[in-house]
């Protein structure tokens, strides 16, 4: 088990290195191949040659690619200095460089945005797990009834309707027309009540989409499991139907749900792009979108890396959880 963990952690480091290299390549190398000067991308349009040269020097864009990569990785772990000949800027670790638009360090922007995304993801996750699994189980047990059909129709709508539709609709109704909720984000530390109020709509909108997926998954899994031989055995023991479902069927239903949950949470923590943009929440997703619009490459790089880290970690957690849930999975 420990050996497995160490091996997996090693694999995680390698994976992150590969992700970093790829991201780096995309933002620093490909423009070069494409014939554009990365320095130009950084400086923006209509820069004078002097500024371009200054940037090239400051970012050491003249160095070989691998040296640049090394500097970049070094910056992540020990920080790095940017020098353009006259003055030196020290960027402490973890250094993701400086935003070209705001000239702020990228790392603090990431750490500011992360709690917003975390709040959004955690709250929505709680909602969709409770809502999705309950709906799925009830639908499976009452298969073919009016409840099942309605729930699955709503779920189909939930899966099909994009966030920017349900999100804007909810904003129009509950915020602009009825004025029930205020959607200006406030950090939890400033005002918990306002934090809660500002997140209610995003939570519900995001949870609706995922709950629909989870309800369908839970229903399908549950239906399959209710036909298993060991469920018949459980009934043959004389267990109450409640126990048969709660203890025997649910236990097996968790496996695919947790698999999906790990991946979904991992991906969401890298930024719920649509939800954050729709509700103007200053999370990682919106940060990424803005950075892309502004061609703010260091920020894009930072968000991508953070997202990759979350996905890799989520995968690891899911794999470890498998061993906990299913005794047949032996890690080693």
């Amino acid at each position, binding site marked *: 088990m420990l050996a497995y963990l160490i091996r997996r952690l090693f694999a995680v480091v390698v994976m992150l290195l590969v992700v970093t290299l790829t991201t780096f390549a995309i933002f620093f190398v490909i423009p070069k191949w494409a014939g554009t000067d990365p320095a130009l991308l950084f400086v923006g349009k209509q820069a004078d040659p002097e500024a371009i040269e200054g940037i090239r020097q400051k970012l050491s864009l003249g160095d070989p690619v691998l040296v640049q990569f090394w500097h970049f990785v070094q910056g992540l772990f020990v920080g790095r200095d940017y020098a353009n000949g006259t003055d030196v800027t020290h960027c402490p670790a973890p250094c993701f460089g400086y935003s070209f638009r705001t000239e702020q360090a990228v790392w603090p922007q990431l750490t500011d945005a992360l709690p917003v995304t975390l709040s959004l993801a955690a709250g929505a996750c709680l909602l969709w797990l409770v809502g999705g699994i309950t709906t799925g189980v009830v639908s499976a047990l009452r298969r073919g009834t009016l409840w099942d059909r309605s729930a699955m129709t709503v779920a189909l709508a939930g899966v099909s309707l994009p966030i920017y539709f349900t999100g804007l609709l909810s904003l129009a109704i509950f915020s602009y027309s009825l004025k029930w909720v205020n959607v200006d984000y406030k950090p939890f530390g400033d005002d918990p009540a306002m934090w809660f109020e500002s997140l209610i709509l995003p939570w519900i909108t995001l949870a609706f989409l995922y709950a629909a997926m989870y309800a369908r998954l839970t229903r399908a899994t549950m239906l399959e499991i209710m036909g298993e031989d060991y469920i018949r055995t459980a009934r*043959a023991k004389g267990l109450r139907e409640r126990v048969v479902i709660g203890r025997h069927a649910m236990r097996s239903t968790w496996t695919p749900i947790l698999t999906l949950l790990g991946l979904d949470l991992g991906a969401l923590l890298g930024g719920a792009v649509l939800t954050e943009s729709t509700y103007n929440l200053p999370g990682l997703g919106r940060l990424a979108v803005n950075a892309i619009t502004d061609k703010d490459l260091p920020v894009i790089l930072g968000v991508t890396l953070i997202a990759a880290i979350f996905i890799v970690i989520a995968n690891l957690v899911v794999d470890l959880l498998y061993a906990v849930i299913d005794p047949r999975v032996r890690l080693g």
Partner: protein
Amino acid sequence: MTDLSQPGQPEGATGALPATTAAATGEVAAAGSPAPTAFLEVRDLRVHFPTDDGLVKSVDGLSFRLEKGKTLGIVGESGSGKSVTSLGIMGLHTAGQYGRRKARISGEIWLNGQELLGADPDEVRKLRGREMSMIFQDPLSALHPYYTIGRQIIEAYRVHHEVTKEVARKRAIELLDRVGIPQPDKRVDSYPHEFSGGMRQRAMIAMALVNNPELLIADEPTTALDVTVQAQILDLIRDLQKEFGSAVIIITHDLGVVAELADDLLVMYGGRCVERGPAEKVFYEPQHPYTWGLLGSMPRIDRDQTDRLIPVKGSPPSLINVPSGCAFHPRCPYADVPKDNITRTERPELREAGDGGHFSACHMTQEERTRIWTEEIAPKL
């Protein structure tokens, strides 16, 4: 609990029983008649499943009796209704059909003086696992993969006994020891996948017997096991039956299995009983062409190796559009022996065939059957 009965008792020791104790009797009691004296009596059982293609008549009018301490073998090919019968007795015939259109069940099932089909489902639930329990075909899929063997047995015990987990655990270890699992105090904490196939079936049997049930139904208990293990499991069932004195129903498509165990045999075809009687009679003087077919398709070591097995031609009947007349007539080589095309127009009733509670549902006269059996079939076996 731990004294094992002597294995290797002479063949037929359980089979040579007086005919009067035979499970099979001729009369099909009318519905609503008073409680029977037999331990288990099934009267005119019908289990029908509505499907999109039509009504599947899995069991269509089945009656039999079983006394305590006796073993009834139900034999038939896939889809003949054997498993549905056992699930019906257990009240589990809707399992696997979850939430779909419900199975229609009618008739009477009397267990120990109590009628089960009309009883409150929760009352029947309380009987399940305590008075009647069941062993399934594939012990790997019948045991929950995520729980230890011990936990599953403990659960089965504690549903019906208000005892602490420690007491139930002791009981589980005792039963695992009884069914021949080595180091039961350690193996109790193993998961099903850590057991071999035979061990899993032993554990399954331990679980079925944990509450000392009076009726044990074994649905193809050895089909998923390899041959050497099969014999051990059958021995175990026989020993345990002696010890616990329960009534046992063995459901199988393998005549070899029931030859070893059953006192009485019931041959099913297309959801109905085509022949029943004491095991010896059914084996040595079978009175139905389908039974002849089953015997002919059974491999035997004493048969010349150059002889081929004699298969039953054709395929099992549709349970939605059951053939008219005798359901077996499309596959029966002797369908034209009775006069007036009667095999195609009239369904044969179970009638006494020979003495000693031997019944057969065949239009041929007993003389015709006896002649065909002794002259044409038996020499080839």
